[in-house]
């Protein structure tokens, strides 16, 4: 017994029912998340994929997704082909060891930004047909669901630049993130990455100030430990 009145318990019971996913919700989203609804190269946007997607999102919507996703997929396939030729001949065809969340449901808008982390890892060469920076611009959109993807893309860009020894680029990406998402879902990660970036630039005083700010604003931040390591604070 929870000691509450019958009125209160009635409301709680209504919430237990209303806030739970239905079986259809589970099937729909779990299929997308665990990879049932995925785009296969070779049958890309083929009948099989369309059936899989249309079962979830409806034929008309899938048609729109296909129309928008096709150029992105084609560009991605071309880039993958070029970027993997030197090291792994058929990496494109390798099965992914673990299911990735298929975000195709929103492929109409967010596919491009999310490709960025991977793209940034490729060595950038002037002669590359599709340069990492240009291949996957961050899509400007006001839909809330896209914003976290854009946040992820910007932070990934910063992290990739930092790991390639380009802290100046990393700082630019972090600044852009701060301007566009001042209170974004990944602002803690941004702050911690900024500390590491400032350290890499030798701006240790600013890094220390940033670290102190994190400690003040969010003393329990899970990112503090890593941030402290960066300049051996």
């Amino acid at each position, binding site marked *: 017994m929870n000691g509450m009145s019958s009125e209160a318990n009635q*409301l709680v019971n209504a919430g237990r029912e209303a806030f739970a996913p239905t079986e259809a919700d589970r099937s729909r989203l779990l299929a997308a998340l665990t990879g049932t609804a995925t785009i296969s190269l070779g049958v890309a946007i083929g009948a099989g994929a369309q059936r899989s997607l249309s079962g979830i999102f409806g034929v008309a919507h899938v048609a729109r997704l296909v129309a928008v996703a096709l150029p992105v997929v084609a560009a991605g396939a071309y880039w993958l082909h070029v970027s993997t030729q030197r090291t792994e001949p058929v990496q494109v065809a390798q099965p992914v060891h673990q299911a990735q*969340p298929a975000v195709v449901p929103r492929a109409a808008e967010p596919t491009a930004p999310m490709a960025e982390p991977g793209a940034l890892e490729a060595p950038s060469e002037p002669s590359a047909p599709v340069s990492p920076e240009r291949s996957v611009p961050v899509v400007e959109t006001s839909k809330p669901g896209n914003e976290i993807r854009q946040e992820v893309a910007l932070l990934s860009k910063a992290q*990739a630049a930092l790991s390639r020894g380009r802290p100046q680029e990393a700082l630019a990406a972090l600044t852009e993130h701060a301007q566009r998402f001042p209170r974004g*879902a990944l602002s803690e990660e941004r702050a911690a990455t900024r500390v590491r970036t400032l350290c890499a630039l030798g701006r240790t005083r600013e890094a220390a100030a940033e670290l102190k700010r994190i400690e003040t604003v969010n003393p329990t931040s899970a990112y503090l430990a890593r941030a402290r390591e960066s300049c051996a604070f």
Partner: protein
Amino acid sequence: MRVDFLTKNATPEHLQEFMATSPAEAAHPAATSQAGEPPLPVPSFQELCTRYFDFVWKCARAFGCKSDEIDDVVQDVFLVVQRRHSDLKEEAAARGWIYSITRRVVSSQRRRLRARNSRAAEDIESLTSPDRSPLAAAEHNNEVRVLSTLLDGMEERKREVFVLSEILEMSGREIAETIGVPMNTVYSRLRAAREEFDAAAQRQRKSLERRRAP
């Protein structure tokens, strides 16, 4: 064979770099393995999806996510989980970690909506069940609306334990492990939250009765 253009080149190292810390580091002490006990194997991303799908969904809804936003929010949560999965070092830390991601994604979503001053459309219609008569459905919808209003009016820490206990039906220990506070704190917050909720529910009922009175 499939190619995921979103993550194709995101190596574990890259993910670790991006995510800056491991869930094990972020884990609440109560949620980590007991000393001397070998940690349970880390669930795969698919296992995490299956195991925590309902948890994420219910949390998101109970913390204010509307039915027309829920798909996006759940996907965003698992997108972050997938991106950071390689950092998950022990199974015991998974729920608290996923919970914190869910809270942040929901909170971020709500802030954005508030900032736009665009109140999400009431999603009561979508709660209508074909198994109910129109009258029963209307009554149920009203209860859900009242519940959401009362939850929105609660102080965040009380709401948190109330939702986890009453809506998600988690035990005190599970709540303590998930949100990283001592059991005593959970129970004291829960007691206060129930009193507050109960009082608000009764006020609401009286107010409704007054309005209905001739």
